[in-house]
């Protein structure tokens, strides 16, 4: 199942490598690093989280010509095994994607102190050879909340979460904060799909929850629900209302019906991990990416250009600069398990 990038890319990579070796002697270091990435369930073209990581990996390969070993996990038992195999195959830096790989990476990183590890969406582990990335999803959700409040005509908006876990409540809380910062009296309907992992893959339920919110008057619905979210976007589009995507840019899923997407720039994390390892700047510990670091953002492209009015655009940009200047501090649900908005 180990996949390599297409032959063309390899050839191009080798060519670039050859050229850089002519120009500078630094390429000697480049030969020493052997990066690997373990994509999680969903696969690298999931139009979401994993695809974001893949974008970052691609950028790294294009810029440095260093090929990245890849593995796509298709069931829970493969994570640890895949990581071990990467180390056996000589990987010097292994990137894990998603909190589900936390246990595996914590075990494998302890066993292989000479290999570097990095993981996205985990912030509670501790190892000298492990870097962890955490995102300030509440800040990104705040931004799209501001957009939702301005786009709503009924002053009622919705949120559909996947599995009911603190991380998803963090999205919800930031979103409510953003909405209420614009319209204090606005109603925000919140639904969680369920208490089990199947809540990430139930688009029918997602669609039904969205319809119930629309029936109660919501006209913009934000989702943080993985595959279930496709049902949210589709139900909003069917009813002529707006949806807000999450993780990667989902504006193109239903052009004209997706107001914007809350971007989690996992590509930045992937690119930075490999770049730092290549340049010898790798550091362990927890790296937090928020609005200030370009880690979370909102999506603006051709698909939603007609939906995002100048008013929305300036309001979101104002909110962003408020967060940057510290004038607005978005509450992090995970810090105290409560939402003040």
């Amino acid at each position, binding site marked *: 199942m180990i996949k390599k990038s297409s032959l063309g890319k390899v050839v191009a990579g080798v060519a670039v490598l050859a050229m850089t070796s002519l120009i500078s002697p630094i390429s000697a270091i480049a030969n020493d690093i052997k990066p690997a990435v373990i994509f999680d*369930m*969903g*696969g*690298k*073209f*999931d*139009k979401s989280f*994993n695809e974001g990581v893949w974008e970052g990996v691609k950028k790294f390969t294009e810029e440095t010509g260093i090929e990245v070993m890849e593995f796509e996990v*298709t069931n829970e038992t493969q994570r640890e095994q895949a990581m071990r195999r990467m180390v056996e195959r000589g990987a010097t830096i292994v990137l894990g994607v998603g909190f589900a790989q936390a246990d595996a990476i914590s075990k494998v990183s302890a066993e292989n102190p000479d290999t570097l590890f990095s993981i996205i969406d985990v912030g509670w582990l501790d190892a000298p050879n492990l870097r962890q990335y955490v995102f300030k999803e509440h800040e990104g959700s705040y931004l799209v909340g501001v957009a939702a409040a301005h786009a709503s005509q009924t002053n009622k908006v919705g949120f559909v979460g996947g599995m009911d876990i603190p991380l998803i409540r963090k999205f919800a809380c930031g979103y409510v904060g953003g909405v209420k910062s614009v319209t204090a009296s606005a109603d925000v*309907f*919140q*639904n*969680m799909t*369920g*208490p089990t992992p*199947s809540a990430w*893959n*139930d*688009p*029918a*339920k997602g*669609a*039904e*929850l969205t*319809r*119930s919110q629309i*029936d*109660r008057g919501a006209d913009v619905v934000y989702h943080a629900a993985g*595959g*279930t979210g*496709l*049902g949210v*976007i*589709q139900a909003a*589009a*069917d009813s002529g209302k707006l949806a807000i995507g999450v993780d990667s840019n989902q504006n193109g*899923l*239903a052009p004209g019906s997706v107001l914007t997407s809350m971007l989690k720039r996992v590509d930045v994390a992937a690119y930075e991990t490999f770049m730092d390892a290549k340049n010898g700047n790798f550091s362990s510990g927890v790296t937090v990416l928020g609005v200030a670091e370009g880690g979370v953002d909102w999506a603006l492209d051709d698909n939603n250009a007609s939906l995002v009015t100048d008013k929305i655009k300036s309001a979101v940009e104002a909110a962003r600069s408020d967060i940057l200047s510290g004038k607005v501090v978005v509450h992090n649900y995970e810090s105290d398990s409560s939402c003040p908005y």
Partner: protein
Amino acid sequence: MMAELWLQFVLALDATIRMSTPLIFCAMAGIFSERSGIIDISLEGKMLLSAFAAASLAALTGSAMIGLVGAIIISVLFSLLHGFACITHKGNQVVSGLAINILASGLTVTIGFAIFSQGGQTPFLGREQRFMPLELPFIEVIESLPIIGPSLGVIYSEVISGHNILVWLAFLAVIVTGYVLFRTTFGLRLRAVGEKPEAVDTAGVSVSWMRYKAVIIAGILCGMAGAYLSVAHGGGFVREMTAGKGYIALAAMIFGNWRPVPVLLACLMFGFLEAIAARLQGVDLPVIGQVSTDLILVLPYVLTVILLAGFVGKAVPPRAIGVPYAKER
């Protein structure tokens, strides 16, 4: 306030019909299969396979109709596989059904990976690749009726109108099932092979062929259920998207004692519970306050257990169910 509550109740009924449709198709499929003596726990797997087939074909060809036809073909093929194992080779029917469910769960994701490289999902389907809701005429006429007009109008426009063609087919399937099983010679023979296959055999009717016909019909109905999930109610395939609906349908079938109308009512009840669970989350009800949605979500299962434990009559399965028929020589 009352008007608002009434509207919410009507909208919940509308959601009930949407949520019940796949259950109805599957439960009718189950009736055909089990009435002929073949246990069918592969409803879930066949529904998943056909949901995948429908979404893939709709995505590749751009036609929901081709998707539906493909879904039915795939589902019938797996029904025949089930039949081949259980009827021709007299295998264990539960094991065969379970095997199909496991196969479906893995196969859909693997093939989905290979064709679309989107983590086992199919691409998002646009409006023209799906069965869209049909708005019925005469809404204005009904709304303008004196006295009962407004409330009848809201029921008509919200609950009855605005469903896609497959929803109508599901209700039609109940009528057809009832008619075929209890009003035709074919139905009489089908029920007979499930009760006393020796008698049918003595009368010169092939038990195997009758049972094959029953599982083929079950396959067709399951195919429609799957297509409903991925190209009508939903807009694409997502791994494990049936989320246990096949088992709920099986429960509804047992609940309704293998009879079409009671089974329909059981499906509607399960659909209603699911619909209100989605709607009651985080809503303050008068007097009661907030209701825990976990409690509502667990209701269908608890109800099934309680009712099957004998509080509401006894479920009497067809006598020869699960028993392969060995022709005497």
